[in-house]
């Protein structure tokens, strides 16, 4: 089925066709210039080969029109490539709203992946076909990179922050994924399979026996275990702000600035609580750096995200009043 000398890998995502088309455009331009310059050089080498040992070349110094021409034409072609590439990249970096969010954690040398309902996998990722998928990527140790050649997408997985990537698989099948950022001894073994299924098949797989609890309930349990509840009281009467409705909202800080509470902000508030203090509160929260794993942070984040729909207390909320702040 596969040619012995394959050229394009399989196309199995919304990005694959466009990336291949852009690649082909650059390739055609590159081949054109390679052939043009090579033919000119070969032609000149034969046409102007030295016939007598004493021959010298013609007296030609240059030609400004030519110089301008071969500066401008490549420049225009290059800007075309830039623009097309920029469109794909901006699309890739801007995930749509309706994504199925899957948490991915890289560690030396394996991948841990978790579905929204809590089902966990190692080195395998089950996803439904024709659905927008967003991967939220975190690392336990060094920098990794999640790469699916058939989808033409990859993204670094950087410790200390979350990166996201999105794509829409367009073909049912089984595809390689690799770690493509060198991460130590078994870097080459740190891969697995993306399994793209029919929605029905995926739903059946998802509801299968796994015994895993969902990240939200795991996070809720942790929230109590780590005694977060002592200060972050939901009705706003604690030493820390209530977290109801915080996720995705604007937060007014002690220095007067306003930030949006996204995954990165929540993560930072857990690990470096003194970095951004909510207005009206004291910097009394201890750091949880080293006390919680990446997975636990994700669970806590999932729980805090689930509080988005809870009623925000009038006083003692982390959320900035709609009137405050002009930035």
């Amino acid at each position, binding site marked *: 089925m596969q040619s012995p000398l*394959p050229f394009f890998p399989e196309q199995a995502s919304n990005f694959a066709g466009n990336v291949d088309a852009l690649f082909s455009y650059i390739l055609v331009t590159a081949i054109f210039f390679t052939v043009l310059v090579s033919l000119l050089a070969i032609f000149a080498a034969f046409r102007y080969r*030295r*016939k007598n040992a004493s021959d010298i070349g013609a007296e030609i110094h*240059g030609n400004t029109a030519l*110089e301008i021409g071969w500066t401008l034409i490549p420049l225009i072609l290059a800007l075309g490539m830039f623009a097309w590439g920029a469109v794909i990249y901006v699309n890739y970096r801007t995930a749509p709203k309706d994504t199925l969010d899957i948490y991915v954690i890289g560690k030396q040398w394996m991948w841990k992946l978790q579905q929204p309902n809590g089902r966990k996998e190692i080195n395998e990722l089950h996803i439904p076909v024709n659905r927008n998928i967003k991967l939220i990527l975190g690392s336990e140790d060094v920098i990794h990179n999640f790469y699916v*050649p058939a989808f033409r997408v990859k993204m670094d997985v950087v410790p200390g922050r979350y990166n996201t990537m999105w794509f829409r698989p367009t073909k049912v099948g089984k595809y390689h994924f690799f770690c493509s950022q*060198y991460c*130590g001894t078994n870097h*080459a073994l740190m891969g697995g399979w993306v399994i793209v299924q029919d929605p029905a098949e995926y739903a059946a797989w998802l509801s299968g026996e796994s015994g895993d609890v969902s990240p939200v309930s795991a996070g809720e349990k942790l929230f109590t275990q780590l005694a977060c509840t002592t200060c972050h009281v939901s009705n706003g009467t604690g030493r820390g702000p209530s977290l109801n409705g915080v996720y995705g909202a604007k937060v007014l800080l002690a220095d007067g600035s306003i930030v949006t509470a996204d995954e990165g902000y929540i993560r930072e508030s857990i690990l470096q609580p003194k970095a951004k203090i909510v207005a009206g509160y004291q910097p009394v929260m201890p750091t949880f750096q080293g006390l919680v794993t990446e997975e636990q942070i994700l669970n806590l984040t999932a729980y805090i995200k689930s509080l988005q729909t809870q009623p925000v207390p009038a006083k003692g909320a982390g959320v900035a009043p709609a009137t405050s702040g002009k930035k």
Partner: protein
Amino acid sequence: MSTAAAAPVKTMPEHHYLNATYGIRSWLLTVDHKRIALLYLASVTFFFFIGGFFAMMIRLHLLTPSGYLLSADTYNRMFTMHGVAMIFFFLIPSIPAVLGNFLIPLMIGAKDLAFPKINLLSWYVYVVGGAFTLYSMVSGGLDTGWTFYTPLSTVYSNSAVAPAVVGIFITGFSSILTGLNFLVTIHTMRAPGMTWFRLPMFVWAHYATSIVMILGTPVIAITLALAGMERLFGLGFFNPAMGGDPILFQHLFWFYSHPAVYIMILPAMGVISELIPTFARKQLFGYHFVAAASLAIAVIGFLVWTHHMFLTGQSTYAALVFSFLTFLVAIPSAVKTFNWVATLYGGSISFDTPMLYAFGFLGLFLIGGLTGLFLGCLGTDIHIHDTYFVVAHFHYIMVGGAIMGYLGGLHFWWPKMTGRMYPEWLARISALILFVGFNLTFFPQFLLGYLGMPRRYHVYPPEFQVYNVMSTAGASILAIGYLLPMIYLTWAAFCGKVAGDNPWPATGLEWKTQSPPLTENFEVTPVVTWEPYDFHNRPDLGLDAVAANGVVPAHGDD
């Protein structure tokens, strides 16, 4: 050959820099730029062999998908030490410290570089840095990749990172000193009549390179110093567990290491700009544009570093700006290429070995440069970043470009450096072997990359095997292509036919003195009255005599 018999028998000059003094002290304490160049030649060749040995191990290991030769840890050490030896200890010093050191004073009509003792110091600094790095290689090796990405290098690696970092830190100073020496020399020591626009393009290229060396190298020194302190003393600059930022390391690292690519390729472009006019016997087409292109590359080259980081999660806007600037930096390289080809038009072209290397350079640099477009382009980089496509691309530039330039230059100036010719036909065949072997080694890697094979894999899925076998086969041919010149150039230095002052003939000032030159380079300071690469107003080149008597130049086909 009957015509050759008419040529006067050439003899080596009685006094020259090689026989001016004798003994090991006369070499190790020399302040003669030409002898220092030969010291560099010996040391970079040593590191080239080390790096080449690692490369062979890598290619042999990858012959089968499961990798039969090395363990994962050994393989990771091999590719890391291959990169470190080749980049920091061979490619960066090769053309500037060997050919540049030897030729810049000769080309501008000076007795030596501006600071001869600093020049010698730079070699010792290089040797000390090299010794630390060798110590790292034998005392546990290095497995971080030549890029030293944190926190892998500073926290997680179990290899000898600290001595390697110290070694590269130290070696950087040799680069800075060399660049400083070149800049001052080119500014202040040009012979009467050697105006800026009469400078050989080789000197222009080294001027641009020196700027990059002086401005860029301190940044890698700082970066590696910070990484070393994090590893040794646990200071959290880059380790996120201590509040550091691992991406900051990449910004600092590539701020030097991208311009470092131009430290490797600009001097090679300078060599090609000498070879093509000489062997086409014609002025360089668009001299001012080629010189300006060198400077443009040096300047814009400092503004493209995050194109190595499009997928680290950096801001989308930053990625757009850096991709745009990356396309801009491609333009001066294109301009140079067009000018080289235009120089051929209407020339009188011979196919001596250096010219074969120039043609080889043109072909490989074209492919290497154009494949850079795929990587600078945001849309395609998402797919091919960190795959074999990148490996193939930068080998086309740094091996196909820089080493073709270096070998072309060595052949071209070998008669000046040693006073003797290499065996012409053997050299031509070697150049051909090298070209074929190179393409067979690295072209399949483009295909591997687009198919999705990531870099730095000690094992790989079986569907990638065909291209890996081709690549390994090519590497064995390539190895022969490198060994042959090492052998016959060494032989020629002692036993080759005596070359005479200007065997090609070429127009540069370095050919106006004897071969090998005197320690002082010139008996009297030369005065330059001609334009660069002008064969028309140069009766001193002896081409009229050739025409009159049918005497062929000394290197003729034998």
